[in-house]
């Protein structure tokens, strides 16, 4: 039901752009206004979100330590799981952000018929997430060729690697297949795994359907309708140089693709997709485990009511005397 709600929401987006372009002829609106609005909302929203996070202080240094601490010199400590300084914490973050270190640990629990609790390594989620995110980045970088003239060497190089399997014309890009497969895996996991299905909200399905729509329309354009790339580039270069034009020759699949991407960008700062920024600011990951070696300061460290030694001694004076425990003055 929650998945269906999300599917309907994405279908509505399809409908809006289809009707808008095909019937109402709003090429200007969907080709130029919407992308501009989306990118402004994205940037402003993310700046707002990050400022909101950054404006809240980090009163305590609370890393979730996941390895041996630095203590005695002859005990080897884990620099990346229990960083002892800022540089090592950066290393830990790099592992987390680039390779999803924590997810790599994933296990699956089963209660066996012999009543054992068994923890099995379960790296499929890690693999699926890693493939999806890296492909997304790769595809985003590949799209630079639509915005930059001349196309940077890096982008050419990425395309050559991505197109290693020269199967089709235009060249089959591995990332297209992988990202679609990863998204379908993540979706099927949400639908089929009882635990994940139980926790999933419409928003979780919405993000997946939206991304599938983006990827699907992109693949459709590249391999099936073979959209006029020069016309697309004319539009995108126009957008980034602030001299937008609506070119002739770009068809419906392109407008669908562009609109769904715009929706994704505009949706980003107000959704769980902000985890992209959140991961960098997580105090359990980005701080060194050196609390006892270096004092961490809480900017709002409050005054609290305490029970002083003198109050305590006054209350228990007779008992202290009787048991021969020295009073403070003695």
């Amino acid at each position, binding site marked *: 039901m929650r998945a269906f709600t999300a599917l309907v929401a994405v279908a509505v987006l399809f409908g809006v752009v289809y009707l808008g372009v095909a019937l109402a002829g709003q090429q200007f609106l969907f080709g130029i206004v919407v992308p501009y609005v989306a990118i402004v909302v994205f940037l402003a929203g993310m700046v707002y979100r990050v400022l909101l*996070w*950054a*404006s*809240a*202080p980090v*009163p*305590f240094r609370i890393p*979730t*330590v*996941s390895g*041996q*601490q*630095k*203590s*005695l010199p*002859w*005990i080897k400590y*884990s620099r990346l*799981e*229990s960083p002892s300084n800022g540089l090592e914490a950066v290393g830990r973050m790099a592992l987390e952000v680039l390779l999803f270190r*924590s*997810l790599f640990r994933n296990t699956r*629990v089963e*209660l066996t018929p012999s009543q054992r609790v068994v923890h099995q390594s379960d790296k499929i*989620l890690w693999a699926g997430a890693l493939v999806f995110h890296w492909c997304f980045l790769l595809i985003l970088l590949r799209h630079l060729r639509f915005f930059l003239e001349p196309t940077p060497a890096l982008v050419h190089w990425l395309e050559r690697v991505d197109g290693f399997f020269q199967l089709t014309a235009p060249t089959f890009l591995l990332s297209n297949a992988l990202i679609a497969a990863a998204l379908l895996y993540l979706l099927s996991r949400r639908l089929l795994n009882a*635990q*994940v299905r*139980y*926790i*999933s909200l419409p*928003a*979780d399905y919405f993000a997946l359907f939206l991304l599938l729509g983006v990827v699907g329309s992109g693949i459709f354009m590249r391999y099936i309708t073979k959209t006029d790339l020069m016309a697309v580039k004319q539009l995108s270069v126009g957008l980034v140089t602030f001299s937008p034009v609506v070119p002739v020759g770009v068809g419906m699949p392109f407008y669908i693709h562009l609109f769904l991407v715009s929706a994704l960008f505009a949706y980003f700062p*107000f959704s*769980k997709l*902000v*985890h992209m920024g*959140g*991961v960098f600011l*997580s105090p*359990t990951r980005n701080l060194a*485990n050196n*609390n*006892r*070696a*270096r*004092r961490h300061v*809480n900017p*709002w460290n*409050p005054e*609290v009511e*305490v*029970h*002083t*030694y003198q109050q*305590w001694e006054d*209350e*228990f004076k007779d*008992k202290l005397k009787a*048991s021969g*425990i020295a009073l403070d003055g003695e």
Partner: protein
Amino acid sequence: MSDKTPQELLQIELEPREGDWLDPSLDFEARKGSWSYPGAGKNLKYLGFNNPREWSPTDQDWQLPDNWQQIIHDGFKELLSKYRSLRVFMDSCVRCGACADKCHFFIGSGDPKNMPVLRAELLRSVYRNDFTTAGKILGKLAGARKLTPEILKEWYYYFFQCTECRRCSVFCPYGIDTAEVTMMARELLNLVGLNINWVVEPVANCHRTGNHLGIQPHTFKDNIEFLVEELEENTGIKVNPTFNRKGAEVLFIIPSADYFAEPGIYTFMGYLLLFEHIGLDYTLSAYASEGGNFGLFTSHDTIKRLNYKIYAEAKRLGSKWILGGECGHMWRVIHQYMDTMNGPADFLEVPVSPVTGTRFDNAASSKMVHICEFTADLIHNNKLKLAPNRNDKWRATFHDSCNPARAMGLIEEPRYVLRNVCNNFFEMPENTIKEQTFCCGGGAGLGNDENMEMRMRGGLPRANAVKHVHEKHGVNLLTCVCAIDRATLPPLMEYWVPEVLVSGVHELVGNALVMDGENERTTDLRGEPFAPATAETEAENDE
């Protein structure tokens, strides 16, 4: 003990049935055995906490202040402005479900709201409603909920059904820490007078007498002197601990259970024997007679209130540095909060072992050293005379206590000590130890009798791993460095693996120490024969 048999308890369904977690429904009457009694009015009153009264979760009316929704909304807003952790954790979760089956309470109960993600969603849903645009516009469609009495009751039930062990945080790709979420939720619950007595009574006791158990100074001294006599009977060694002594080099801080109840008292004897062995200049304090800090299970302000005594007493006594005993949550507070809250401890010196000369630079600012670090250094420098064969009747494994493992990274130190004081040491499976260790099921104030069924459920993954090494290697002793463990693991073992006993690490150190002038030692610190009872020795005993 739980009314249900282990067989009955094991009927666990880990695949949630259809149903919507957004609809709150809880029957406290039917769930007896899985929640804790509420904080008594007198304790709340003593501490100056809000809304002191007598009430029960089974009551229809929880006697909340009239404007309780506003109080919680304002409190939530304040927490969001003070803790980046809370903001980031509220916003970043993608509900990937990696945490779902990492929680011991979920594994042991199958209750979907014990999946860490849903525990946090209980709070997050209200956050969305109160503080996000999407939540305000889309409501339930965006997973937002307006705070109702039913949801508040869920908060009470599930946030006092989390032991703040942080295992899920190890697996979360964003490091979302359910302990942090639970701590925030408990702060909010405290604002309207919702807390459990197993937490607020120790807090009130500790504030007044100096320790959770409410032991007054004369009894404190009596208890310890009794243990000193026991120790002399077993070893022939008379140790002379001092109390509130000014000028002692080291202030020694321990969890109060260590001088109060079995098996902690044997660990305590181990400490004292060790200090006698090396001639340490130390003192105990009846004022700072608690290392543990149930403030951690209440609110950040309460942590600070209780923790204050440690530095204050070290300063008053003129100690050079502080040594801390075996305790789990105590070390989360010492390691991650103390210096920030009550430091800087510039009146103390960087700890240096008077025996080995080792400077503990890892404690250069807080000036407090863990006894396992201290002892490991002694052993490494060959300063202890040890007869590990005295522990030969034990086939030991080590339970990493949640906080020393995941707040400190104290992983190798206790193992190094154990390998040197006993000959038979076996590790449990790797997914159940070190940073992936499982909770005893009774931390964070949940180790009370009325919550026994939930404790046995939550302790299942730990007990199951013990059972594994018991069957595979004949393990008969579960060692740990935590006072709560020493209180909660014995009933857990009795329920799931009755052949296994529980001890602290320094109990085994005490057994192995060869003391100058000791009598011919035949019994361990428990007063039981060193050697395993074989047919031969039994025959001797009969004669």
